[in-house]
C-alpha cells in the first residue's frame, strides 16, 4: 500500500512536471528553480493524488485541471491569459493522446474500467501519456501551430471562449471516465451533445457580449448626436434671432442703411447647390437613413427629414414589424433616391409621425420617368436603370393586415405612406 502511494505520488508529480516542461518548450523560456515552487508542486501533487484516490470523478477532473494550471503559473510565472491558454491546449492534446493510448492498451484488457482497476496498467498508461505529450510538443509543426494560435488567442482573448473550451474538455474527460469505453456510439453521441450545448452557450455569451459592446458604443453615439442637436438648435435659434434683429433695425433704417443691411443678409445667408435638413431621426432607423444620406449627398438630392416620433422606434413596434419596416425603408429609399436623382428638382422628403395607434412614415420624392401604372409593383417590372422589379413587388407582399403601404402619385411627386400599429 505504501509503495503504491509512493509510486502514485511520483507518477502524479511526473505528470504535472511534464505539463510544466511542455509549456516551457512551447514558449522557449528558462525555468528558474526556487524552493517555493518545489513546495507548491509537492502540495499540488499530494492534492491531485489524494483527490484521485478518494474524490468523485467530477471533482477529480476539475481539481486536476486547476492543479496543472497553478503549477504552470508558479513555475513559468507568465501572464495568466497565456498560462490558461497553454494549460487548456496541453490538456486537450493530452486527452487525445490518452484516448488513443488507452484504446490501444484496452486491447489487452476487458475495457477502460479494467485499466483503471489495475494499478500497474494505470500507472504505465499515465507515464506513457506524459512521455507522449512531451514528445508531441517536441514536434516542430505542432509546437509552431500552438504558438501561432496563442498569438491569435492573445490578441482576441475572450474569457467566455476559454470557459467554453474548458467546459468541453471537462465534459469529454468526464464522459471518457464514466462511460463504458467499449460503447463507441454512446461516447460519440455524448461528445456531440456536449459540443452542441457548448456552441449554443458560446453564441449566447457572444450575443450578450456584443449587446453590451453595442450599448456602450450607442451610448457614446447618442450622446454625440444629442450634443450635435443642441448645437444645431442653438445655431438655428441664434441665426433666427440675428435675422429678426436685423429686420428690426432695417425697419427703422434709412434707404442707404437698408441697402447695407440687405447686402449683409445676402452675405451671411449662404446658398448651396443642394440642401440637407435632417431632423431628429428616431433610434432604430437612424442607421438605415444615415447610410442612405451618403448616396443622397453623392447625387446632390435636396433632402428634408422631419420626425415627430419620440424615443426608440424598436420599443414602439413588434420585432417582426421592425424587421419588415427596415426592409421597406431600404427598398423605398433606394427607389426614391434613384427617382429623385433623375428628376430636375431632385427633392426627397421623409416625414415620420405617430398617434396613439399607428406609426406613420411618408416618403415623398420628385421623379421624371415612364411609369406603367398597370405593371408597377409587378415582379420584373422596374422603372429604374438597374432593373430588377423586385423591390416594389416585395413591398406588395409585405402589405398585410398589420402594415399598410399606400402608393400614390400627385403630379410629379411619388408618395409612399407606411403605417404600422404601435404595440
Amino acid at each position: 500500500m505504501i509503495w503504491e502511494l509512493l509510486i502514485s505520488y511520483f507518477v502524479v508529480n511526473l505528470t504535472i512536471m511534464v505539463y510544466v516542461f511542455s509549456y516551457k518548450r512551447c514558449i522557449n523560456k528558462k525555468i528558474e528553480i526556487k524552493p517555493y515552487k518545489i513546495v507548491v508542486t509537492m502540495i499540488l501533487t499530494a492534492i491531485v493524488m489524494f483527490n484521485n484516490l478518494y474524490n468523485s470523478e467530477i471533482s477529480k477532473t476539475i481539481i486536476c485541471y486547476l492543479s496543472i494550471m497553478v503549477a504552470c503559473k508558479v513555475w513559468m510565472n507568465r501572464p495568466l491569459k497565456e498560462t490558461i491558454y497553454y494549460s487548456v491546449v496541453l490538456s486537450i492534446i493530452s486527452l487525445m493522446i490518452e484516448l488513443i493510448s488507452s484504446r490501444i492498451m484496452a486491447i489487452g484488457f476487458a475495457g477502460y474500467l479494467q485499466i483503471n482497476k489495475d494499478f500497474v496498467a494505470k500507472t504505465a498508461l499515465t507515464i506513457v501519456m506524459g512521455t507522449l505529450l512531451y514528445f508531441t510538443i517536441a514536434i516542430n509543426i505542432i509546437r509552431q501551430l500552438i504558438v501561432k494560435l496563442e498569438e491569435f488567442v492573445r490578441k482576441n482573448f475572450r474569457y467566455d471562449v476559454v470557459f467554453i473550451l474548458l467546459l468541453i474538455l471537462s465534459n469529454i474527460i468526464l464522459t471518457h471516465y464514466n462511460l463504458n469505453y467499449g460503447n463507441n456510439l454512446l461516447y460519440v453521441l455524448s461528445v456531440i451533445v456536449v459540443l452542441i450545448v457548448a456552441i449554443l452557450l458560446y453564441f449566447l455569451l457572444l450575443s450578450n457580449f456584443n449587446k453590451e459592446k453595442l450599448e456602450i458604443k450607442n451610448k457614446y453615439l447618442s450622446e454625440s448626436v444629442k450634443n450635435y442637436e443642441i448645437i444645431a438648435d442653438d445655431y438655428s435659434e441664434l441665426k433666427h434671432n440675428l435675422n429678426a434683429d436685423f429686420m428690426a433695425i432695417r425697419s427703422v433704417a434709412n434707404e442707404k442703411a437698408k441697402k447695407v443691411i440687405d447686402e449683409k443678409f445676402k452675405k451671411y445667408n449662404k446658398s448651396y447647390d443642394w440642401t440637407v435638413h435632417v431632423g431628429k431621426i428616431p433610434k432604430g432607423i437612424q442607421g438605415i437613413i444615415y447610410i442612405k444620406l451618403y448616396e443622397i449627398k453623392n447625387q446632390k438630392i435636396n433632402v428634408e427629414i422631419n420626425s415627430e416620433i419620440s424615443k426608440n422606434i424598436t420599443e414602439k413596434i413588434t420585432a417582426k414589424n421592425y424587421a419588415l419596416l427596415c426592409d421597406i425603408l431600404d427598398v423605398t429609399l433606394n427607389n426614391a433616391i434613384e427617382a429623385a436623382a433623375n428628376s430636375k428638382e431632385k427633392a426627397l422628403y421623409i416625414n415620420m409621425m405617430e398617434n396613439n395607434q399607428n406609426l406613420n412614415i411618408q416618403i415623398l420624392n420628385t421623379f421624371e420617368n415612364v411609369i406603367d401604372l398597370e405593371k408597377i409593383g409587378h415582379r420584373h417590372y422596374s422603372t429604374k436603370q438597374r432593373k430588377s422589379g423586385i423591390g416594389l413587388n416585395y413591398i406588395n407582399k409585405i402589405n398585410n393586415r398589420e402594415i399598410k403601404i399606400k402608393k400614390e402619385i400627385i403630379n410629379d411627386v411619388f408618395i409612399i405612406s407606411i403605417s404600422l400599429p404601435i404595440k
Partner: protein
Amino acid sequence: MTKIVVLEDEKKDQGLIQKTLDPFYFKYGESLSIKYYNKCTTDLIKEIEDLSERKIYILDICLNGKITGVDVAKKIREIDWDSEIIFLTNHTSYEHKVYSSIFKIFRFIEKFDNMEERLGECIALILNKECDKGMFKYKNTQMNISIYMKDILYILRDKDERKLIIKTTNNIFKINKTLENVLIDLDARFKRVHRSCIVNTERVIKYEWAKGYFILDNNEKVPYLSKKYKGEVV
C-alpha cells in the same frame, strides 16, 4: 371668390403684409377677402379644411411655438393641392428647396430682400392667372394618381400595348383605359385631334392640319393631327 390667408406672428411684419395687400383688396373688392392669423388655431384648421373657395396662403415659416409655417403647409397639402402657398422666411429660400418641389410652393420670399415688393408681385401674378383646379385622377389596385390637367400635354393610344399614354410636362404614364372614357374625366380644354390622340389645347402653340402635326409649348412636335377633328378644335 378668392381668399388670402395670412399666418404671421410678428406684428411689424403683419403690418407690412397688410400694407402690401390693401391695394389688392380695394382693386378686387368683394371678390377678394383677407384673413389674418398670428398662430395656428382651430379656426385656421377649419379654414384649411374648407375647400369651397380659391385660397392663397401667406405663411411665415418661423412662428412662436411648436407649429411652424411648414407644418401648416403640410396640413394644407394633405387635402388641398390647388391653393397657392407663399412662404415668408428670415433665411434664404435655398434652405427650403425640398418643400418648394414636394409641396408645390408658389414662392419663398426672404423678409430681408424687398419683401413688400416681391409679395405684391406674387399676389398680382396669382390673382391675374385663372384658377386652375382641375386634376385628372386615376386609381387601380396598385396605386392612386392625380395629375394637374394643366400639366397634361396630350394622351395617346398605344395600339401595341393597348394602353393610353399620358404625356405630362415631366413624365409619361401608361394606363388601361379608352380615349372615350378618359375624355369624360377631362375638362373642355382637352380635345380629340386624332383617332388616337387627345390634346390639351392650352398647351398647343401651333396646329399644322395639312402636315398632320401640332407643336406644343415645350417645342415638342406630335404627329397625331387629323383634319377629321378640325371642327372640334377650331
